[in-house]
């Protein structure tokens, strides 16, 4: 970037009324809205939980479908990725470019592992002998569990995927040599998003998975 450009950019971020950067306020507003998206999906799932409890009049034990060990593992992975994300944000604030790069890389890898687990889980559910949970059926019978489950966890997965691509974007950018502490705010927004997606999973995991084992 030329000097003039940096000069112009300085003017882009005039002191705000609250002192918080605009991008951060935007991100918080978006996350507030996103809470409602997931709130709606999770409520849908909970409302249908009772109805999902039977198939063809016989009680349905969703535990037979779930692979709780795998999901616990992917939950752990996603939580761990949050740590990397936090370290990345901290590194960019300190101007530690190498550290940022590695931590971003770690987040991307862990995010990808989570996604891979989810892809495995979905295909496993669809082809699991004797269960065959699809969007519209369970064991070949019309059922609502697949609808609420796949759409809820799928939306979350989409969020993780978008996050991974976003992080990859920054990772690539870090190799252009233009990354400075001025970009810290962008990485921080990215981090806010990533932590939010993790927190949502912390809600989904007990509500969708663990509750089946508790009640």
């Amino acid at each position, binding site marked *: 970037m030329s000097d003039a450009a940096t*000069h112009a950019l300085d003017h882009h971020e005039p002191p705000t009324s609250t002192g918080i950067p605009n991008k951060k306020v935007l991100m918080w*507003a978006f996350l507030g809205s996103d809470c409602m998206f997931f709130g709606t999906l999770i409520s849908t799932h909970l409302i249908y939980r009772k109805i999902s409890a039977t198939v063809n009049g016989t009680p349905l034990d969703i535990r037979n479908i779930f692979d709780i060990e795998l999901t616990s593992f992917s939950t752990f992975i996603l939580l761990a990725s949050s740590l990397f994300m936090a370290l990345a944000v901290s590194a960019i604030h300190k101007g530690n470019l190498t550290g940022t790069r590695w931590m971003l890389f770690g987040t991307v890898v862990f995010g990808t592992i989570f996604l891979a687990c989810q892809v495995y889980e979905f295909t496993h559910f669809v082809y699991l002998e004797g269960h065959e949970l699809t969007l519209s059926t369970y064991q070949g019978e019309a059922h609502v569990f697949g609808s609420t489950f796949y*759409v809820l966890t799928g939306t979350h997965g989409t969020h993780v995927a978008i996050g991974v691509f976003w992080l990859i974007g920054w990772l690539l950018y870090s190799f252009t040599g233009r990354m400075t502490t001025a970009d810290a705010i962008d990485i921080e927004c990215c981090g806010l998003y990533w932590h939010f997606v993790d927190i949502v999973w912390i809600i989904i995991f007990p509500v969708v998975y663990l509750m089946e084992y508790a009640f």
Partner: protein
Amino acid sequence: MATESVKYVAPETDTKTSSKVFPRPGQNTTGIVNWLTTIDHKKIGLMYGLASLSFLLIGGLEALLIRTQLWSHNMEVLSNRQYNQMFTMHGTTMVFLVIMPMSAAFFNYLMPLQIGARDVAFPRMNTLSLWCFIAGGIILNLSWFFTGGAPAIGWFGYAPLTDNRFAEVLMDMGPDFWIFSLQVLGIASLLASFNFITTIINMRAPGMTMMRMPLFTWMTLFVSFLLILALPAIAIALAELMFDRSYGTNFFDFLEGGKPHLWQHLFWIFGHPEVYILILPAMGIVSEIIPVFSRKPLFGYGLIVFSGAIIGFMGFAVWSHHMFTTGMGIVATSAFSILTMLIAIPTGVKIFNWIGTMWGGRIRFDPPMLFALGFITMFMIGGFTGIMHSSVPIDAQHQDTYFVVAHFHYVLIGGALFGLFAGFYFWLPKITGKMMNKSLGKFVFTLMFIGFNLTFFPMHYLGMIGQPRRTHTYNLGHGFETWNQIATIGSFILGIGVFIGFLQFVHSFCSKKLKPAGKNPWDARTLEWTLSSPVKEHNFARTPIIKARDQAWENNYGPPENHSEKVPLDDHGVHMPDRSWTPLLSGIGLLTMVLGLLFHLSLDQSGEVVRDYTVAIVGGVIFILGVILWAVEGGGGYHLFPKEEDE
């Protein structure tokens, strides 16, 4: 809108990091390119306004067809399916393509001026919001031309009527168009709202504390919060419906475990805040106009702000009053009934305060004030019938009759539309720099007021003697004819009034004969009236330092310590962001993607369903490309060096 007094800096000092493919148009761009690539909140506001006024004419035409069909019993102006399409499109158009974007037009144009900002926080995002809105409008109205025609499901799209199982035309695409257009319009509203929230929280001029903000800006803030919190509910409901229709999920399919109730809850969790999303902007406009034409500050400013917040907050707790007849049980209906009654209190507070503002003032009856007074009286009637509906036993008779139609038209035409028209008459001199003919304005008001009451007042009575809504005809012998005829005549008078108003607005942009408005023709009170009319590209040459609530008024009449000061000019000048093609590109990508999704299904020769996502993927790629270019091109910008008083 640059004038000679603005000295442009040499181009080489500009930031030019944009790609070669879509170079950012320069600062001197004019003509169509200027409008397509603008990121100026004022131009965006104007486009929002023009588009929503055009949709008002389309939606109004649909309303007139509906009224013509109901002229007498067993009329055949429209077939029953056409009628059902008309009322679906009329409702959807008026809510999503007229009142919401018209409010957004005012938000865009005025809110930054009122808080002393040079633009919104994210100008390019604002442009994308505009193109999403246009795309949504196009998608919805494209539905007329494809299988099944426009949707015939009502603007509320109650499941399971939207299910393929109950489609009355084979492969009916109407509901799909409806779903996707609402999704795209939702994106537009979300983007705009994030922007407004950030702008209001972060970009106020020095000294513009929250409690010094004009009422209209407060309402912008509340509406934006309502939108970002309410839209997700319907976005998810629509997504679930889309999955139901296209991929066989069972969210709302009662034969396979779904619950039609769920759709109603999700729809109204959005739908009720939506009602306040429609009315709060008009309340904000009226709260600006009444003090100006009474020459008094707003009575109980704090209370009006607070009541706006309460209304917004409680708006999320009363959605089930749209569902009193769906069998929710004694406890739920009682609770929602009482909560709904409570919401009348903050609404009443506003009306008391408006009257309190006028008390002891010097009231002038210019067109904006007439519309504002029309708003108060008509909204009052709409509010009273609303209180009636909050009582479940009354609602058991009124639900889905013309009484309800009368009620919400009193709120949405007598309320929202009158408020927005008041806003047009009030602020167009600021926008065009020319005064409109007052007599014509009063004539428009008279036509609209009489036509409106003639149309909708008899509907109260029609509802009570048993005319159900959403019926394309009625039988002989119910005694509905006379009152329907009066309503139809009234609707044409109203239509003529709105049309003349529309012509007057457009004329005031084109005409060279109208007399210039000057900075502050109404002797108004808020910050935008310290600027020249029309407002310069850079809004404020020097950022004002705010000392009091009604700054324009205080500058003229207030004590010296309340006069605003200015942040001195520096040698950087005013930084202006560059125009950009990327929002338009992303918008086109989104439109292509949606069209691709709409038409992805086809039947091959053997009758098998074939899914072809090529177009959708191409659209998605264009969208992502647009976003990437957007990110890469950076903020950009150029500098203006206006003189001190050039604002």
